[in-house]
């Protein structure tokens, strides 16, 4: 398995640790926010507010409802970043 982490993941991991005060060792891609990190729905909102600010993206409520693991959050960040960078329709 390729264990090279893209920068997005590293920045996300740092944000999770800072905002949610969780043990850095517990923050792995497959960690579930609820079951493994003990973060409830409000905590997830709090995290994604900070993510929006740091990544200059907008995350929707539908996006939030799709996030179970740390890796899901990474996917959402990459998708919304691509949205932001996509040229507007001609």
């Amino acid at each position: 398995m390729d264990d090279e982490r893209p920068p997005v993941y590293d920045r996300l991991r740092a944000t999770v640790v800072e905002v949610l005060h969780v043990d850095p060792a517990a923050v792995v891609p497959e960690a579930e926010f609820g079951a493994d990190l003990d973060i409830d729905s409000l905590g997830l909102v709090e995290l994604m507010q900070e993510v929006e600010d740091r990544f200059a993206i907008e995350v929707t409520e539908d996006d939030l409802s799709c996030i179970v693991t740390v890796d899901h959050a990474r996917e959402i960040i990459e998708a919304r970043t691509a949205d932001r960078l996509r040229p507007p329709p001609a």
Partner: protein
Amino acid sequence: MTAAPASPAGPAVAVTGVGVLAPCGIGRDAFWSGLHRPAPDGTTRRRLADFDPAGWFDSQAVKRVDRFTQLAVAAAAEAVAHAGLDVDPAPSERTGVLVATGLGGLGAHEAALRTLDARGPRFVSPYAIAALMPNAPAATVSMRHGATGPCENVTTGCAAGTHAIGTAMRWIRWGLADVVLAGGTESSLTDTAIAGFTSMTALSKRGTSQPFDIDRDGFVVGEGAAVLVLERLDRACARGAPVLAIVAGAGSNADAHHLTAPAPDGAGAAACVRLALADAGLAPGDVTHVNAHGTATKLNDLAEARALHAVFGDDVPALMSVKGVTGHLLGAAGAVEAAAVVLAMGAGAIAPTGATTVPDPALGLDVVHGAPRSWTPGPALSTSFGFGGHNGCLVLTPAS
């Protein structure tokens, strides 16, 4: 003249635990000692020195609770441990919580406003509402102690703490609970609140708090919390708990006069005192000590003096006000003052009214000041008169 209501049948209610956080001391023993030290001077804000919420909240949780909730949790924990209920709890459904506040989670509210202005609505914390809501302390205390009996909060301004203890007493008398964690909390030392009180000309220009003093010129604002464990006396005795005092009676009424000034003749306040005495089955001549509201404003102290003379005539019992040292703790004041009465019973002494040097002769009151006064514990009256004309009184008697 209207007949006073008969003292209701119902089990006697004891105080079995006390927890206090006040500007003069964190913890009930430090608070009691602090009442005997010189009052701070020159500031209209009296903060708790060295309060560290880490004792009760981890680094994640502490950001999501306003300070007024932190103080309530700490006070409740001390009271519950004092009562021995941490190791020998009452059934959860028979344990109630009633925590008062005056202005609620002002700090959290103002932080949310600043975020809204600076970053927009999307960045207002999802925890903002839960942090600022006035019921947050009561709810959090119930969670910490697994209390699933009645859990409510009181917000009758400066009388709220006294009302909380009076109502908790009634819950036990009425059989709604066997144990109630009752008290009040306040941490409203924000610039907005101080500015508001200043604009009302309620605050001392000198930053001193001199209840009943001839030179009194207003109050100062403090932060703090107190929780008392109220428990059915028979239950407390059966489990060998410390019985620190009896909550013998309570009174509650309104001036219906003005949103911030007391009725100048003190009639509503006097009626409240009589209600509390009647509830306790006592006569004015039985009272041996008054823990006064004593905010150090010209108006309150005069109206309170008139009220006390209306009930007691010339012989108003020895009185003091903790506000000389702690400042006005708003929604927490009544609870801290009830705690002071309980501690005074234990110490056999009335603490001095800090910063008061010359009691105003026009008030005709025996104000304990300068030094503590030895006291054989007897029935004591605690009075609170809140903005809005809310009057609350408690009668506490020593454990026999």
